[in-house]
């Protein structure tokens, strides 16, 4: 327990913990100063100057986010001079910011908008030249609009500190400074992993996902097509937040119902293909272990990680599991097996995926995943986009009558549910691999060592005669650290799970913006979303992938066995080294 000290805020005394910043101390005693560049999970820059306070003894105002409290400190947060200075700074930001709030993607979710309202810039004093930049629409996942950028630098820090990708940095200087890629290339030609964490931390709409809602609405009114949608596990754990629910509300069946109301003919669950992934990946792993294959094997379901691996760790591509991601497996089956089953030309099937992820939009475009030159997933939308579509269609998610997923690809095990949280894939795989390897039932199926939000988690699982050494990383910066360890000590691990986003898919770059008061990357928020998935797992009778009867049926009817030639054709793939090569600080 840290020491307590006494400070004075606006002439009232408070006891606060020592060794924290003024901003943190004020947050804890019921003040909430406006802030923009500050993010609790990122380093502090003190750049926006919005959170200034007056501290006795300092000639100038200090930024509360960077100044530590000290014994007897006298702080003023609300003098008229201070309010004026804060207002002026905010106006300076607004003077260089578009005034198109009503047509902005972020209307209602914009931190700048909320802060502006609080501070109150009623008249403009200093308006002048505005910045003019072109939009970067190159990426299927991310749209950059530097005109809306307020240069808080959160995206730069998230990309560097959380993801270790360093795709973007500050470029130029002074009034012309901007956030951009190397050589100001289109972001699609950069090392960007499309994870969308920059979007999650951006206080404005300078960074947002490429919206595919208009296209989807258009397709949904296409009478000719069979419209199929799948939703990822993490979507149901967060979509409620888009409708004002507290984080941690499970909305599985409501979402299924809403999707039907939107006009989908079939509502499938990506968790089905997650079970399928476990079957394939578990088998692949056992094969590698038993036949001296390339180890450690690394999971391949997180599309941001795949691109990162192609660019930053091409030497580890042979270690990647050849399995397609659950989304792509599902889409493959829809366009092959299911199409045949319902007697439809694959061209007349619209395959849509709702994902917590912006990188999935990129995955959908990948050449490697196409079958006979056709895209498998036609449209990917994020949880955020789905939330908007539901509202836009006038559907009330909160009072809707719950509905089940459709047959065939609608049922799943608890193992598939926890795919959405860091360590979940590994845990699911272990549940199945253990039993398949030893042929006996695993009693304690909850692997606590690989749960939780530690950056890198390691565990050793005794599986009969072998000690299975596994590791789990989430967030690419952690992944990088883990891979460095693995590279230096090739025998250390046999199986590694990597998730691009902090917390896994629940913290995906396409998840709803955190409710006011929370910020993305907040562990409390991630925990609440994760708990949804763990609870769903626990509530299920079938908690192991291989026990899913629909899985058993598809092997019987279509695939034969895991790793069969059929499944190789449809469910597996290979990735290649990609340029530009990623470089990171050693």
């Amino acid at each position, binding site marked *: 327990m840290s020491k307590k000290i006494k400070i004075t805020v606006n002439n009232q005394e408070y006891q606060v913990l020592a060794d924290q910043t003024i901003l943190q101390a004020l947050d804890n005693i019921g003040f909430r100063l406006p802030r923009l560049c500050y993010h609790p999970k990122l380093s502090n820059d003190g750049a926006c100057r919005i959170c200034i306070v007056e501290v006795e003894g300092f000639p100038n105002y200090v930024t509360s986010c960077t100044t530590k409290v000290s014994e007897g400190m006298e702080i003023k947060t609300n003098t008229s001079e201070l309010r004026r*200075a804060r207002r002026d700074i905010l106006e300076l930001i607004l003077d260089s910011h578009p005034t198109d709030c009503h047509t902005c993607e972020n209307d209602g979710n914009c931190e700048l908008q909320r802060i502006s309202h609080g501070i109150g810039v009623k008249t403009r*004093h200093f308006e*002048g030249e505005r910045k003019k930049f072109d939009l970067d629409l190159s990426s299927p996942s991310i749209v950059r609009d530097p005109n809306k950028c307020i*240069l808080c630098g959160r995206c730069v820090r998230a990309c560097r500190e959380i993801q270790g990708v360093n795709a973007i940095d500050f470029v130029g200087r002074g009034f012309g400074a901007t956030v951009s890629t190397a050589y100001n290339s289109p972001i699609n030609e950069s090392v960007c992993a499309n994870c969308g964490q920059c979007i999650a931390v951006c206080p404005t709409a300078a960074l947002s996902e490429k919206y595919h809602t208009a296209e989807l609405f258009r397709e949904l009114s296409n009478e000719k097509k069979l419209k199929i949608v799948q939703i990822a596990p993490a979507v149901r754990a967060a979509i409620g937040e888009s409708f004002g629910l507290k984080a941690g509300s499970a909305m599985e069946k409501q979402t299924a119902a809403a999707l039907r109301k939107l006009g989908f003919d079939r509502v499938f669950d990506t968790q089905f293909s997650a079970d399928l992934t476990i079957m394939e990946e578990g088998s692949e792993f056992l094969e590698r272990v038993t036949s001296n294959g390339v180890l450690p094997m690394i999971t391949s379901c997180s599309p941001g990680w795949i691109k990162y691996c192609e660019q930053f760790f091409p030497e580890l591509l042979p270690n990647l599991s050849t399995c397609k991601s659950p989304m792509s497996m599902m889409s493959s089956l829809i366009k092959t097996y299911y199409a045949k089953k319902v007697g439809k030309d694959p061209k007349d099937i619209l395959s849509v995926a709702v994902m917590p992820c912006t990188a999935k939009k990129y995955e959908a475009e990948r050449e490697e995943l196409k079958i006979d030159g056709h895209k498998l997933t036609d449209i990917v939308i994020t949880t955020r986009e789905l939330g908007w579509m539901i509202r836009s269609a006038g559907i009330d998610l909160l009072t809707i009558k719950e509905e089940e997923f459709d047959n065939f690809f609608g049922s799943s095990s608890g193992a598939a549910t926890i795919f959405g949280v860091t360590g979940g894939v590994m845990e699911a795989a272990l549940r199945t691999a253990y039993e398949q390897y030893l042929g006996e039932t695993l009693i304690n199926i909850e692997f606590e060592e690989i749960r939780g939000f530690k950056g890198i988690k390691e565990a050793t699982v005794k599986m009969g005669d072998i000690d299975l050494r596994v590791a789990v990383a989430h967030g690419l910066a952690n992944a990088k650290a883990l891979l460095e360890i693995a590279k230096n000590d090739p025998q250390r691990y046999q199986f590694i799970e990597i998730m691009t986003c902090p917390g896994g898919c629940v913290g995906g770059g396409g998840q709803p913006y955190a409710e006011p008061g929370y910020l993305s990357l907040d562990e409390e928020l991630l925990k609440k979303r994760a708990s949804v998935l763990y609870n769903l797992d626990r509530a299920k009778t079938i908690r192991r992938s291989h026990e899913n009867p629909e899985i058993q049926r598809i092997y019987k009817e279509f695939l034969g066995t895991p790793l069969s030639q059929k499944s190789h054709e449809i469910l597996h793939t290979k990735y290649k080294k990609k340029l530009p090569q990623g470089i990171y600080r050693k």
Partner: protein
Amino acid sequence: MTKPLENLKTIRLKAIQDLIDQGLLSSTRIYVGMSTCEIAAGSREIWDVFQKEIAENKIEDVQMKQKGCAGRCNLEPTVEVLQANKVPFKYTNVDRLKAHEIIRKHLIENDVDTSPRIKEMEIDPFKLADRSKFVFGDLDFFKKQLRITLRNCGIIDPESMDDYLSVRGYEALAKVLSDHSPKKVIDHVSKSGLRGRGGGGFPTGLKWQMMADQKSKEKYVICNADEGDPGAFMDRSALEGDPHIVIEGMAIAGYAVGADKGFIYIRAEYPLAIKRLRKAIADAKKFGFLGKKILGTAFNFDIEIILGAGAFVCGEETALIHSIEGARGMPRIKPPYPSTEGLWGKPTLINNVETLANIPVIMLDGYQSFASVGTKKSKGTKVFALAGKVNNTGLIEVPMGISLREIIYDIGGGIKDGKKFKAILTGGPSGGCLPEKFLDEMVDYDSLKSAGSIMGSGGMIVLDEDDCMIDVARYFLDFTQEESCGKCTPCREGTKRMLEILNKITSGKGDDVDIENLERLAITIKKTALCGLGQSAPNPVLTTLRYFKEEYTEHVKYKRCPAVVCKDIISSPCQHACPLGGSGAPAYIALLSQERIEEAIKLVRKENPLPLICGRVCHHPCEVKCRRTAIDKPIAIRSLKRFIADYEMSNKIEIPYFPQNDKKEKVAVIGSGPAGLTCAYYLALKGYKVTIFEKLPVAGGMLYVGIPEYRLPKDILNHEINNILSMGVELKLNTEIGKDTTISDLGKEFDAIFIAVGAHQGLKLGIPGEDCDQVIDAVDLLRKINLDQKVELGQEVAVIGGGNAAIDAVRTIHRMGKNVKLLYRRTRNEMPAEKEEIEEAIKEGIEIQYLTAPVKIGTKDGCLEQLECVKMELGDMDKSGRRRPVPLKGSEFTIKLDTLVAAISQQPKIEDMKDKELKFSKWNTIEIDPETLYTGKEGVFAGGDAVHGPWTVTGAMSHGKIAANMIDKYVSGQKLEREYGVTRPAMDVCVVELSEEEIDNLKRSELPKIAVSKRASNFNEVELGFNESQAISEAKHCLRCDKEE
């Protein structure tokens, strides 16, 4: 003696022995200034001349050496010749020819005078330690300087270790290493009172102590040589002139704080300094002053040079650290300070070049001696780059506590071209502009700060009346805006907005709200920006707002730039400087240059009703501000106007004018001088019936009776007046207001009245004895002569004064065959009379006694016999910005005289009008609302000398023009207010490119005048005016600033 000192001694001896062995100790040494500034002045060429001629003439035993900059920029290139057993010589402004001469004199013919002055100095310039007296001893520029950090600059060869060793180089390091503990070093630095010279003024000893306290194995010392202020070049000169001293200072710092690695962060734009530093570091390593086991001790220290890349903000220490680390040079929040978390997170000491250069001196001469210089809280000296409008620009080092006045006047030699001091700017873009009232402030950290400026790193720019303070503020904002790193909002966005507002103001588009917003923004940025650059960026704006608010008002309200600088307001300087507010000068000059003379006449007439007169006697403020002055001479605008007007007259060209519809209202104008005539002209144009009342039997007022015939012939004047009368203006001569009629009577007959009487009353000298008949008044005298009345003058005449009336009087009296001299209490530079007039007077043989003031008039039998005078000297500046004349005690003398003419000033004689409703000032002028010229008495306006006191022709005319407008508004019942707009060209005249042939043939036209010998005893016009080809040629010299974007 302890070990390091012994080692140093051995090194020194060996170095000298090496020189002897290599035959490099010549008996003749030639030092050539080879700093960046010297090279720019041409010293490299001089160096080559010496080398070549020495080789060609096979001269032996000569050693060529380079030296750094001694600071005296306008004397460069400099060369010194030192020969064994001979008097040393130094040469300034050396060119090819001079170099050749030096070689012939010293090396070939040995024809050297012995200068007694240098002998008296009893020094041996061969001894480097003595050289400073020789180099600096005889120039005023150096008298108030005290050179500590620059003591070797301009003295030693910066690329020679031997030279540095011979001025006790590395002795401080050796001394420190032999018996000083690090604690003792820090203690001495603390006690010396040295404060950081980079600008902030943080106590150096304290900074070192904080570093020493850090328990880190790795520590770094950084020398901040990222000098980037516009106009500052202290670090460059110091490093170019004496690089070793900084290295020695860094090594001592490293020893004191426990660091073994140093970095010098220097601008890439300083290639010569970098080259010399590289050599110095290599030499220091070779000689064992850097590297492992320095001077045989356990102390290791190494230095690496890091080049900056054009970012001013990298002068900020955290930004500098980021730059060394290979990152964008963006500052970060402090704390943690670099002394706890610096380069790569390790404790880092950052000192600026000048701070470090002080260290060896403190160690060598003792902290007591250092602390004895300066003020209570600021010890030692400060180096400044003195620039701007002073006569002596250059690099100076002065003791703390010296006044700004001493720097500007004693060291800088005063303001250039006798102009008026306006402000001094210290601290570059982070500093402030201080006005005259701060000139006696002490130069130290605290007093400059309390005045609103900062000491800064040492840029010091002197501004004069030709500098616009808003433009200066805008210039610096432009700089800081350009150099803002872009990290924090207030600096990135705020400086841009401030610049935009300043641009708005300087382009005449600003309003009062802009000034408010500017100030508000400045305060917000100052209080909230992240780093020092941002926090200080508003300083130039804040200080100009504080001390020069009226200039902002001028720009915003009156759309005038008093210094005639702001392009968008003034269009062209000549036009903006004209009191008439729209002379059209650049346009009619352009028309003339294109031989479109009739168009030029039309334009001249449109803007000026009296061009024949103005073309002869205007005081031409246009020419004073002409851009061409910076090149050679101003365009002879007045004479060009005269040519155009004369052309019109002699060719009888009729310029039709189009008066507006006749109006029934009548206006009375009292006085037929320039104000009255102008007012009558413009009112007539508007269709009013105007009657001019003139007390004298002739028309023209002061133009007739105040200006001698040789400057303004009466027929010319009459021609112009007739032009105006021909527009239907009525003239009533011999009508005196207060006697023949009254203002109130006129009020009954006329709808409005404009009082424009001249200042016909001379002022008294105010000395005993002036009431005798032989003491007369210049205006009186000139009036009588102009009216052909009898005047009685003795043979010996003196005129007292320095204005135009004095010159007119003295030249007139001279023409009457009298012995006349002019007495003036200041010097020629301060004389208010027009320069050409003074020049002509002198040419005509008139004696002027400067610095002479009358004290008493001696009479005999009630008649003037002699004038008792006293000699004056110039003291401090008075309110007008001129130096005040002070009597020299005991210098009294007398002059025998028959007549004394007082020409000190004039007043109007308003009281004669006997009107109780008019209000008068203590100078006997009518009080009016300056905006509208309204007197407060119903329907009565006043202008010209009557409200201003003695004034210029165009000044009076400007009132006439305003009065006409105001009267029109008054009569037609409109609100009395003036509209102000920016000055715009009167007409768009295209720019014609000159052919190469034309340029070759273009010669400056000299204004023809009658010969001095032909001027005696007649009043013929002196100036003859240009002929057509001369005028066109002169017009082609115009730079066409009106078309400059």
